[in-house]
């Protein structure tokens, strides 16, 4: 069977091929259509259980996964675990054991520690989807961004994408850059040096410390959220100064290509990293990203939740048959 999706988990963009990504995006297109029908539900995963295991507060990602699971007719359970109760490995291990006993088919996990989803993936029999781990990866966000870009631009290959803002703390930036590089995109990052990780040049992205050259000729402008809760004062002199030098307003957006699109993973700090007129402007695809998120997560759940029977058992021939 060619062209299938042969991964047991979705832990990161790292490890995916361009073919894997396109397969996921094409599957997501079919679910996108489902989400626009009068009945926005298909019976595909009836009887399957999805557990949302969130160690970090997140309303939109959790809701998006919840909606995705429900539109596939899976039973979705949300487990929010207060960060304070995490006692490193031991508790995570116990959580694994507890989860195992509930016999889920997919566990969707968000955790403040990089690698936590990989840890439970190696200890659970079910599929694991990383919904954001520390400063590491957030693969479904990168996939929904790619889905949105492909819909707006008609392609993914060879685009110039500028990622603006807090790259150092952003798992979104990391997953996005990895994915876009698979398609030969030019990825530029622009931020104050304090918000860029050391050695970022070696990952194949272009690094800028001023907005104008970074946006020049860009097809896509991705604005990242200034994560106030992660900054703790030391890295930025003030939000006002940041807004003045790195905020995206109409004047700055004019440096990009005339048909450029503006993206933001949300939630937005209006007036800090993005100006209100840009956020609500015709080039903004922020709400398309949200809609794409449900479709992409449906595709991920669909591709991972199926029991893996041996191939070629004849159950699934695509040949004409009634």
């Amino acid at each position, binding site marked *: 069977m060619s062209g299938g999706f042969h991964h047991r988990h979705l832990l990161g963009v790292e490890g995916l091929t361009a073919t894997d990504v396109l397969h996921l995006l094409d599957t997501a297109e*079919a679910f996108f259509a489902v989400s626009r029908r009068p009945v926005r539900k298909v019976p595909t995963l009836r009887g399957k259980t999805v557990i949302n295991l969130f160690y970090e507060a997140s309303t939109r990602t959790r809701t998006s996964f919840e909606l995705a699971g429900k539109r596939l007719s899976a039973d979705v359970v949300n487990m929010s675990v207060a960060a304070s109760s995490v006692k490193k490995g031991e508790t995570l291990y116990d959580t694994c054991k507890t989860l195992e006993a509930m016999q889920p088919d997919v566990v969707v996990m968000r955790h403040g520690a990089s690698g936590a989803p990989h840890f439970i993936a190696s200890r659970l029999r079910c599929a694991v989807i990383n919904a954001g781990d520390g400063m590491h990866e957030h693969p479904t966000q990168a996939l929904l961004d790619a889905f949105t870009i492909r819909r707006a631009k008609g392609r993914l290959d060879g685009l110039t994408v500028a990622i603006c803002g807090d790259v150092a703390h952003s798992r979104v930036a990391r997953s996005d850059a990895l994915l876009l590089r698979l398609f030969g995109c030019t990825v530029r990052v622009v931020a104050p040096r304090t918000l860029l990780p050391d050695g970022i040049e070696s990952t194949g992205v272009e690094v800028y410390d001023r907005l104008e050259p970074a946006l020049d000729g860009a097809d896509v402008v991705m604005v990242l959220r200034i994560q106030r809760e992660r900054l703790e004062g030391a890295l930025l002199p003030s939000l006002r100064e940041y807004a003045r030098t790195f905020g995206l307003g109409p004047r700055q957006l004019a440096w990009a290509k005339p048909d450029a699109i503006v993206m933001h993973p949300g939630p937005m700090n209006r007036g800090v990293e993005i100006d209100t007129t840009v956020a609500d402007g015709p080039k903004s695809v922020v709400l398309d990203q949200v809609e794409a998120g449900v479709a992409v997560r449906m595709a991920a759940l669909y591709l991972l939740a199926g029991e893996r029977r041996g191939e070629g058992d004849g159950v*699934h021939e695509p040949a004409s048959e009634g």
Partner: protein
Amino acid sequence: MPVTEQLVLDAGDIERTIQRIALAIVEATRGADRVGLVGIRRGGVVLAERLAEAIGEARGGEPPPVGTVDIAFYRDDAATALPDPKVGPSDVPFEVDGRHVILVDDVLQTGRTVSAAIECLKDFGRPARIWLAVLCDRGGRELPIAADFVGRLVQVPPGSRLDVTFDARGGARAALSLPPPVSPAGTRGEDGARR
């Protein structure tokens, strides 16, 4: 191992069959004010388009609208089978409520695909009536489903496959792929042995 092919319907046969089914559909839906065709991906899509044209000609007017459904998300083994290598969107670009909808597929066998397609169609609305038109009925039902319009009943020997192809240039054919002669031991070919 050599596989022998046996032609069941050639392009001319298929064209005449389409004309005949189209006339039967016009006759059967005479009282209905709205008719639409829905092809089941992938084998039924081209057939539905051809049928729509033929219906338009037979009625001397516009062809009825055509949609497609992909039953991948509605399979009764969806949760246990491997995901489809390629899932296409279902697209029904007309109001289903109160309409006579003709589901179209190339080959009818177990009835499971049709059953799934009916479920899918019902999620687009509440049709006044769902009909079923197929080019070939090869028997072997696993569900109580029957077609309203059948092009040809085809006897398919065990271990054989029936394939309908519409190529891009409009040529169409239905052919049986027969397995090599059965050895005295009587072992069956595994390929395509659906029942």
